[in-house]
């Protein structure tokens, strides 16, 4: 891993510290009394705050996870740099796309 990938991973990690604490808090609150679509959506629909919160989370986790995945693959498979970068970008972009759909699904109906 070179210094640029390293910095992107550490920066996305720092950004996610408050986001993960927040997400853990939300989960512990939300799980009480069981989960249902209407219950989740009543909290998140139309909320600019949750849109920004989870929107940022999706971008940061996609960057962080893609780089982490690349590191693990580089250490356990015999792949060249081109293949590793392709998998990293592929996974990262798919994750951002799917995450963006999920965020808009719950905040912007």
């Amino acid at each position, binding site marked *: 891993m070179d210094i640029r990938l390293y910095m992107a991973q*550490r920066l996305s*990690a*720092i950004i*996610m*510290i408050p986001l*993960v*604490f927040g*997400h*853990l808090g939300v*989960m*512990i609150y939300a*799980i*009480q009394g*069981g*989960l*249902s*679509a*209407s219950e*989740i*959506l009543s909290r998140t629909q139309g909320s600019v705050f949750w849109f920004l919160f989870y929107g940022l989370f*999706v971008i940061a*986790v996609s960057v962080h*996870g893609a780089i*982490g*995945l690349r590191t*693990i693959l580089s250490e356990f498979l015999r792949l060249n740099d081109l293949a590793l970068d392709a998998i990293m970008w592929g*996974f990262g972009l*798919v*994750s951002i796309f*799917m*995450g963006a*759909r*999920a965020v*808009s*699904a*719950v905040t912007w*109906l």
Partner: protein
Amino acid sequence: MIKGHRNHPLWYAYALHRVSGLTLVLFLPLHFYVLSLALTQPQRLDGFLHWTEIPAVKFAEMGLVFLLSVHLLGGIRLLVLELLPWSPRQKTWAALAAGGALFVSGTFLLNAV
């Protein structure tokens, strides 16, 4: 315990950090897909969420919460190690990270059942 040079606390902390990260990153697309069902097929989302009432699923959720918490707390230990002045108590911080994660996931489980 694993024999040989790997059998020590900080190596286990590394292994746990790696396994938790890998599990979470592979879980992520599934997580995003299920949530996006709210957009296109809200009844299917409720169908999925019904599964969460099964005890085994609640334990699996607790597992995921543990992995996320331990990855977060262990990750904070690493950021402090790499960006702030050296602390010789690395094993202690690693143990606190694991303990903290058990606390958070335990709290989750108690609220889930």
